[in-house]
């Protein structure tokens, strides 16, 4: 479709377009479309995908290290039986975790 206002100067063109819209009864839009609407969707998808990828990578790394770990070591003096090769620094520095009564079988600090 050819725009008949194309050859006019910008101000006159805007005026004509407004007149045309007013004549057609089209109400002015309340909200302007975001200039980066498509990029927003793309970015949100990318962020969610990254979130999933990072989380899955952590889980995969964790399960790999658990599989590769040596045979379970029974710690008679410790709070429980641990399949971890060594207590993680995180667990060691975590006061609440250190005082837990439940057996610690996790290697989550890696």
């Amino acid at each position, binding site marked *: 479709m050819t725009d008949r206002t194309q050859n006019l100067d910008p101000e006159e063109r805007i005026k004509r377009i407004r007149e045309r819209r007013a004549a057609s009864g089209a109400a002015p839009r309340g909200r302007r479309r975001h*200039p980066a609407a498509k990029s927003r969707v793309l970015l*949100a998808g990318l962020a969610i995908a990254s979130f*999933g990828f*990072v989380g899955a990578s952590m889980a995969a790394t964790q399960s790999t290290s658990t599989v590769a770990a040596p045979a379970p070591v029974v710690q008679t003096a410790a709070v429980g039986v641990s399949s971890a090769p060594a207590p993680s620094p995180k667990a060691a*520095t975590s006061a609440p975790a250190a005082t837990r009564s439940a057996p610690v079988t996790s290697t989550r600090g890696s």
Partner: protein
Amino acid sequence: MRDQTWWYVARAGGIVAWALAALAVIWGLQLSTRLVRRPAPAWVLDLHRFLGGLAVVFVGVHLLGLAIDSFIGFGPADLFVPFASAYKPTEVGLGVVAMYLLVAVEVTSLLMKRMPRQVWHGVHYASYAVFVLGTVHGLLAGTDGGDALFQWACLIVSGIVLYMTLVRILAPKRSVPKRSPAERAGTPS
């Protein structure tokens, strides 16, 4: 759901929130420095705002994961009161302060038209503190702070932010005859 799932949610949420906040800062610096001339300011501004909002959302995910996960056992005081955590109080406290500053920047940006521009501008400068505190928090408090990939990412992104900040400070102010409404709405001057 596996018992470690929320732990991964917390860690991944924190990393993504940091990356988004860093991108928001870089996007904001791009608005004020125009280092890359190609993208339209309105497009950059729109994404800058969106990145900030998305960073807040992922900080929420980070907090949710920490609140639900039972490994460290964070309570509301650990999550919302700076330096009150039993686990690495200073390092975790920096993250809590960064969170409040991020929320302040976001809220003042949403209410920008209803407040004096100088107030908004002053609060907006806290974005730098958000980035620095968030980075230090991630490196020192986070389990992934020892990860080489994360350390390199922090180094590269910090270098970019530092470079753009220096450009902004040292570059002579350009005389812009007329600014577009999009620029007037949100470009830090």
